[in-house]
């Protein structure tokens, strides 16, 4: 095995978590999904009409259809109901023909979701993986606390986009409001239009790329230089969703954390020992 001397001295402290190596063989299996994943077929299609039904009923029918093996589900007349399409932890193609209300598609872990209308507050909150593409506009706290996956809004979004995000990619085709990327800890945000005041306020890590004007940077958000690898990655990502940077990817403004607010070591060593 290759030596990892460059980081050896970085690991004096035992990090949290239990080593799982003893339970696991790397050549054990070529499976692509967890044993409890539902086996669905993308070519098996079904429509669900949400007209006159509660969000709970619609969500339960989505789950029931998945158990029957349907891999492409179209929800008609979603009527901007709140909490539709939440908690889907499986591969799936889910299409909403219309708009969603608050907290749409939260906790997603795997599905590819398309929404032909707009979405209300907190769309895709705590999303873990998969893709969500919204054709029109989105409300505030879009992609709050997202952990992974691609969340795309082709229109404008409200304020606090990607607040507390811990991974994944948020792409905004239009403008984003104030405090976008607030307390961002990881992940990437690409805004092709303008960004409101206090962009990236108190961000710990992660990157924000902006194509338009920035009304103002937040505390500890600073400009950074793009790499060629990043440019290629952004081009690839935007192509996937049929988007284009207005003045070219190379001219996006890159914002990252200045790391002046990092307070991991706020306790003095002697105080820390007393606490522990």
């Amino acid at each position, binding site marked *: 095995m290759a030596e990892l001397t460059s*980081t050896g*001295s970085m690991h004096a*402290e035992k990090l949290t978590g239990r*080593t799982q190596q003893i339970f696991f063989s790397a050549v054990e299996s070529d499976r692509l999904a967890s044993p409890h994943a539902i086996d669905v077929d993308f070519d098996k299609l079904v429509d669900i009409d949400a007209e006159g039904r509660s969000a709970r009923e619609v969500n339960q029918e989505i789950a029931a259809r998945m158990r029957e093996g349907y891999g492409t589900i179209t929800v008609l007349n979603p009527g901007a109901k709140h909490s539709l399409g939440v908690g889907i932890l499986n591969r799936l193609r889910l299409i909403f023909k219309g708009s969603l209300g608050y907290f749409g598609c939260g906790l997603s872990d795997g599905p590819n979701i398309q929404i032909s209308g707009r979405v209300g507050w907190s769309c895709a909150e705590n999303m873990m993986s998969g893709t969500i593409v919204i054709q029109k506009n989105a409300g505030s706290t879009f992609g709050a606390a997202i952990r992974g996956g691609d969340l795309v809004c082709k229109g404008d979004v409200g304020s606090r986009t990607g607040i507390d995000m811990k991974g994944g990619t948020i792409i905004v085709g239009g403008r984003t409001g104030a405090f976008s990327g607030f307390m961002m800890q990881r992940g990437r945000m690409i805004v092709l239009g303008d960004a409101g005041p206090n962009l990236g306020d108190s961000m710990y*890590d992660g990157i924000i790329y902006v194509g338009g004007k920035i009304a103002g940077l937040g505390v500890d958000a600073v400009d950074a230089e793009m790499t060629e690898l990043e440019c290629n990655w952004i081009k690839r990502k935007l192509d996937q969703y049929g988007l284009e940077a207005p003045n070219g990817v190379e001219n996006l403004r890159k914002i990252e954390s200045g790391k002046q607010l990092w307070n991991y*070591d706020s306790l003095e060593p002697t105080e820390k020992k007393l606490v522990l």
Partner: protein
Amino acid sequence: MGNVTDITTQAKGSSTEEREQEIGQHIGYRYDVNLVPDYDKLTPFLKKYIEFMGWKDLNWLEDVHLGYEEGKPAVFDRNINGWVQVPDDLELPESQQERDMIARELLIKFQSSETHPMVELNAEYGKVRPPSSE
């Protein structure tokens, strides 16, 4: 245009490292969390996984990198909030991008394994199950 930075090189011998040793606590992540993947380094297994999931790229795996636990190469599994050490007999390439791809592949294999702790948890508490288990 800037260059891709190597965080491990940056931290080695830096004041950050000294401060970490002094306080007995790490500052920040152990690797460059902002390093985006180089898709030329995709492994055949990962290509198969992407296709299976119906995605066009690595999706959530873009945030997975090879990290370290107790000085040994490991990958963090968010589902169990713990590190999975890379098996000792696995040869690791020198390039961070290639190491990250191996970490991603290992993580998927671990999460898909019958021995993953989530399997037991799901059996006890899972709400949505395939028809065969009902």
